[in-house]
């Protein structure tokens, strides 16, 4: 990955980084952040959505009501949600190494970030599905829909705007986690902020990373809000 490149650019300098050098330092780092968050969010959506659907439908009143399985799933999800990210990341190093063969860099960051993101998103999805009026699910059942059709049309279909809202929150949380993951050499804007801004008192870099993160989060939120509006007929017309 591009960590060596970042270090190579930065090492000859001490004290404040010149403004002109900022792009060569921050652009690759920003690319790494986007890569990390992008990959993690794909995994989170792919795994978290079915998990949220399972949680919702195994709870009482769901399509496959099953108290025992719900209890176990819910407990696992709660564990995933109760550990602070830094602790989780450190605690699962052996597991991360088992999967990725390394404990530094972007691949090593993706494992704990996904593990933190999946339960978070699963709960968000579960909540969104719970807010779909029961009468809509009933109407689908009475129309002869199969369980999968009910999940697709009446549950997920109706909850799309709410889930996108949750996705926005989750993405922003993952941007934050990516900065923490920077401390294990995962690169990205967070890594630059820690090594330059924090460890070397390089205020220019520190300020630049702050501005970049604020802009990114704002942009994600804006995009999310747009999508929610676009997918909600009552807000669109």
């Amino acid at each position: 990955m591009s960590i060596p490149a970042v270090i190579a650019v930065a090492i000859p300098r001490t004290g404040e980084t010149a403004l002109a050098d900022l792009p060569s330092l921050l652009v690759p780092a920003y690319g790494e952040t986007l890569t990390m968050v992008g990959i993690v969010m794909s995994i989170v959506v792919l795994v978290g959505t079915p998990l949220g659907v399972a949680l919702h439908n195994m709870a009482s009143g769901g399509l496959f009501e099953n108290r025992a399985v719900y209890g176990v799933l819910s407990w696992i999800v709660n564990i995933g949600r109760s550990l602070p990210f830094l602790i989780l990341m450190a605690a699962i190093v052996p597991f991360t190494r088992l999967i990725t063969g390394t404990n530094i860099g972007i691949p090593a960051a993706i494992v704990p970030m996904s593990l933190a993101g999946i339960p978070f998103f699963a709960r968000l999805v579960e909540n969104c599905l719970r807010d779909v009026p029961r009468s809509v699910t009933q109407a689908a059942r009475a129309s002869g829909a199969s369980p999968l059709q009910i999940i697709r049309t009446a549950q997920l279909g109706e909850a799309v705007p709410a889930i996108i809202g949750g996705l926005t929150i989750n993405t922003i949380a993952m941007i934050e986690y990516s900065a923490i993951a920077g401390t294990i050499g995962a690169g990205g804007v967070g890594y630059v902020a820690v090594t330059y801004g924090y460890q070397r008192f390089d205020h220019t870099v520190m300020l630049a990373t702050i501005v970049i993160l604020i802009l990114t989060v704002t942009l994600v939120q804006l995009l999310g809000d747009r999508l929610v509006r676009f997918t909600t007929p009552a807000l669109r017309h």
Partner: protein
Amino acid sequence: MIRIDQLTKAYGHGPDAVTVLDKLDFAVDRGEIFAVVGPSGAGKSTLTQCINLLERPTSGSIVVNGQELSSLPERQLREARRRIGTVFQSASLFSRRTAAQNIAMPLEYLGVEPRETKARVAELLERVGLGHRAGHYPHQLSGGQRQRVGIARALALRPSVLLSDEATSGLDPETTRSVVALLRELRDDLDLAVVFITHEMDTVLQVADSVAKLEHGRIVESGRLVDLLTDHGSALGRALQPQLDPAPPADGARPWQVTYDSRNVPQDWLQRVSQELGEPAALLAATIQNVNGVSTGKATVGLHAASPDLVRDTFARLGLRAEPGSGRPDAGAQDTAREDAPATLEHAL
């Protein structure tokens, strides 16, 4: 047609079991609208869920066109549900789909070809008078229009039984009338057996051919609407009539409550009573309406006549039942016919 036999639904087991529906029996023929009325908690929603096969009855059966459905295995149950169209309360439309897309849902679930679906949806939209609203989303439709979409969706798979679950509840009187008119029209055109579940007594008068009163999970009274309304002995028939608030009678006169007790009450009964009793009968309150071709109603009349038996006989000859008393709920102790008061009526139900 749909026949319900000894339908029982209980929740829980052993001594904690709660029986919500207790051995219900009724049948609805094609071309008939059967209303089930009852207060909240009577078991109406459980009955709905059993009829559209979303809940399995504890015992008893639901037979549609001769086939027993409620004991089918899950997969076939899903197929069987398609033979019963359900109109829910208005909140049951898919909010992110247009009127046309909502109506298309049952066809989509069944896997009908898109072209065929489109044609059927267009036909249904026209049928319920919403041809010009195909592309509108539920939030852009009025309550009555949303209910029409719900009706069209329920009819998409050409069911022979239509179940209406509080479909007019929460609609204003004008809209209720138009939805009811549509249901009656569809009953005639499509020869549907309609089960109309509601808590609104006045809607029953507009829509039903037959009616049953559900209370504490049992049918306590049922019959043809006209029969109930023209039978003084029917507590349900009397409960279905609008509540009146009669004017006080003139000095020396006493109020008489008059109910229709026959299908052949002459229209000029007030004049005839006046003539036979030799005094003008004062009309203090009245409601008379045509229900399925028969006049029915009730009235409060002020009379000076001294002999109660003479008054009763006079009315009885015209097919009317007269009881002394104003029928006013707040008339209090001076009311001579206290046994006709609401408390006893409740008991009689």
